[in-house]
């Protein structure tokens, strides 16, 4: 890896590990102290490595320095001393010998526990995603604001409020008890799912940042899959879904961050490796008897890993969408189901069904109808594209729709 890339990379991978171990040790009420220690450590790394060159083992260096900084604080900071040392002392023999356990096992355990603490139902889903990005992925308020298309100030406030809430609720850094784990995992999975989608469907022009968001969501979900207590079929189904979607990452955006539609994507750019991983986790997800929405979405994504249209493919996709909608309604699933219906049954039937959806102010609804009318009635197709343009909000959607309108108008001449 290039030297300039090393610190950002380590920041992504090591920040959450060290901070999880420290917060676990200090308790959530001292999360800021843990954040300061880790930030200081990385600052020192940037300065020292810049002057003296890279240490032999940069990760070990980070661990040693953050350990020493913690010990220094314990010795010299009176407030920290009084508040935390007392608490730590309960579990530690003496405080000169305080053990900051940065072993693989403790890192993994602490990270998992940290995920559960952050995805606690006492804070809103929005805040959970923000905190997950901030604490577990090392994203600053600036980057989070960029991904959410928000401003730094309001993101910063949101993060502060969420941290305060976790403190006042005295959330422990621990795994939920076994009888609660499935329930709590549901919240965790929702956050991971949204975190991934945030990157995948974000309007942000920053392509690298968006990819990073997806990769981080995948890393965290992988952690859940690798841990015995949290390795349930839903986790693997979600991971499978993420792999299938991520396999198209290189093919679905152009240089300007504009969407390239599935139909127009270059299949050679799809990652075989990620598709295979997706299949692997989908197999792993097939144990147990609960069919979650992640199972259904992963299965739909699986059928999309092959562009060839067959009757079997679209019949399967249609039935999966039928099941998904019975399980949980969403407008996007309703629209996609109707597209599947046109492929499996007929465009005529799909048009009748589409009109019942009650989504007439949704630009995707009109894009869908334009697609369905494309071969039946170009005048209607054009009308719907223009209505879609009226309701679309983002620049990339407008660009896409204008292209389609131009295409039909040129054909008519």
């Amino acid at each position, binding site marked *: 890896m290039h030297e300039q890339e090393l610190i950002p990379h380590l920041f992504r991978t090591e920040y959450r590990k060290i901070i999880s171990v420290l917060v676990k040790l200090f308790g959530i009420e001292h999360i800021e102290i843990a954040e300061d220690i880790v930030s200081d450590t990385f600052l020192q790394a940037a300065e020292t490595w810049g002057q003296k060159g890279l240490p032999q083992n940069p990760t070990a260096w980070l661990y040693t320095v953050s350990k020493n900084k913690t010990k220094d604080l314990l010795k010299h900071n009176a407030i920290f001393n009084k508040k935390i040392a007392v608490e730590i002392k309960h579990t530690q023999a003496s405080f000169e010998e305080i053990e900051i356990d940065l072993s693989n096992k403790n890192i993994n355990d602490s990270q998992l526990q940290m995920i559960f603490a952050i995805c606690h139902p006492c804070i809103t889903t929005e805040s959970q995603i923000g905190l997950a990005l901030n604490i577990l992925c090392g994203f600053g308020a600036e980057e989070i604001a960029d991904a959410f298309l928000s401003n730094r100030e309001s993101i910063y406030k949101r993060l502060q409020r969420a941290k305060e809430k976790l403190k006042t609720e005295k959330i422990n850094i621990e795994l939920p008890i076994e009888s609660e784990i499935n329930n709590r995992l549901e919240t965790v999975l929702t956050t991971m799912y949204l975190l991934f989608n945030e990157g995948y469907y974000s309007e942000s022009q920053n392509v690298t940042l968006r990819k990073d968001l997806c990769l981080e969501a995948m890393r965290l979900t992988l952690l859940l899959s690798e841990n015995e207590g949290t390795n349930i079929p839903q986790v693997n189904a979600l991971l499978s879904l993420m792999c299938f979607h991520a396999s198209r990452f290189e093919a679905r955006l152009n240089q300007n961050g504009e969407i390239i539609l599935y139909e127009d994507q270059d299949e050679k750019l799809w990652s075989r490796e990620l598709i295979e991983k997706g299949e692997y986790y989908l197999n792993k997800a097939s144990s147990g008897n609960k069919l979650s929405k992640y199972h259904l979405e992963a299965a739909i994504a699986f059928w999309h890993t092959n562009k060839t249209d067959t009757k079997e493919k679209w019949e399967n996709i*249609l039935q999966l969408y*039928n099941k998904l*909608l*019975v399980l949980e*309604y969403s407008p996007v699933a*309703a629209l996609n189901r*109707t597209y599947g219906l046109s492929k499996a049954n007929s465009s005529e039937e799909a048009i009748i*069904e589409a009109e019942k959806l*009650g989504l007439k102010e949704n630009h995707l609804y009109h894009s869908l109808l334009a697609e369905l009318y494309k071969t039946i009635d170009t005048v209607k197709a054009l009308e719907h594209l223009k209505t879609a343009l009226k309701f679309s909000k983002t620049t990339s959607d407008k660009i896409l729709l204008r292209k389609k309108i131009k295409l039909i108008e040129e054909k008519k001449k």
Partner: protein
Amino acid sequence: MKDFLLLFRRDGSADTNTQMSPEQIQAMMKPWQDWMGGIAAQNKLVSPGNRLEAAGKVVKPNNVITNGPYVETKEAVGGYIIIKAASLEEAAEISKGCPILQMGGNVEVRTILPMN
């Protein structure tokens, strides 16, 4: 929006003997899946309900238990779902697409009384 119970009735004595192939079963399922998926796509499916086996018992006063209920009524309940709709008329309109109608059955549409 109100909730409506859709009761599917069919001739209980008709479908007991013929053994169907997996392909036939699949072909029979599709209209149901498409119809229910269509209701769900309108966000009007409250509960996918249940399908009922033909066999059942009817319990009457004085310890009388009979096999049934199809012995007495030709139209046995074969299943039910719960939907939501703006009116009884809309609920009936939605029921027009029910595959049971192609099988000689009918749909009974009933408004569910709210609990309070």
